[in-house]
């Protein structure tokens, strides 16, 4: 899994610290996109106003092992993501 966050590292660090996590290491691929280029390429940039910021629409994509985009769910609310079961179903179907 790759997660993309549209902030500089400071903001990500602060949020981790605030949530009680290690602010030096996360142990998964939390990718930082402060230039917003990847968020814009994937069509999610600037679409959600939250915490006084203009941030990215929460979106989940699934890419198969040939590199083809097979699934895209663009959230219409911040909890609008596939559930783990739904994701497993999608991955099984690839």
């Amino acid at each position: 899994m790759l997660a993309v966050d549209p902030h500089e590292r400071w903001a990500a660090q602060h949020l981790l610290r605030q949530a009680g996590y290690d602010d030096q290491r996360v142990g998964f691929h939390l990718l930082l996109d402060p230039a917003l280029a990847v968020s814009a390429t994937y069509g999610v940039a600037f679409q959600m106003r939250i915490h006084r910021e203009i941030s990215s629409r929460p979106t989940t994509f699934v890419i198969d092992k040939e590199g083809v985009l097979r699934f895209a769910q663009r959230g219409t609310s911040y909890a609008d993501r596939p559930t783990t079961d739904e994701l497993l179903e999608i991955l099984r179907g690839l």
Partner: protein
Amino acid sequence: MSPASTVRALIDSMPEDPAAVLEWVAARFADEGWSHPSPEQPYLRALDDQGWKARMLGLQRLVRSGEAAVEPLIGALGSEQADLRVFAAQTLGFLAQHTPVEPLIAALESDPRPSVRLYAADAIGMRGSASEHAELLERRASLETDRDVRMHIGYALERNDAALDPAVIDALLAWDPLRLDSARVGEPAPDFELDGFDGERVRLANFVGKGPVVLVFLYGDT
């Protein structure tokens, strides 16, 4: 028109002159385009909204203009259109190395819209040397009523005077605007390369072949 040709048409319709770019963005990305699913939910653009594209293209164009964009952007901090003030403050963060601190402080201290104050705080931090204004920022944080703005004043102070990494500007300017909104189900996923929080450099293409990838876009909240 195909999606690619609509992006091209949008790019072609964008002016060169920074002041004109600001008007072009303002016309396409206004407060009225925000709606929220319920009172407890954040605001979201409609799924078919095109306005965000103008914002991204305008951001890149203005940052590419460099110093020449700063005065029009400072002017836009005084716009009656709140969303334009927000866009101007956010863009000035990317041009922080060319931006005097005074208009950013003025926006932080007196803009009625919290988002403007938030991006002004970010921009002060992105200039580097926020510690020169530590007393003012700390006083501002104690007077600031909005929790998120206070948090971003905190970021500016926590940066230890580190300016925005020039690699971020390079990445923004190197981005091909024709790639805007180019991810399509059924087509190859657009390749990209980003730095991970743990210091790793990640390229999507390196995962292809190893197994499926779940790619999740966050808005920046744990």
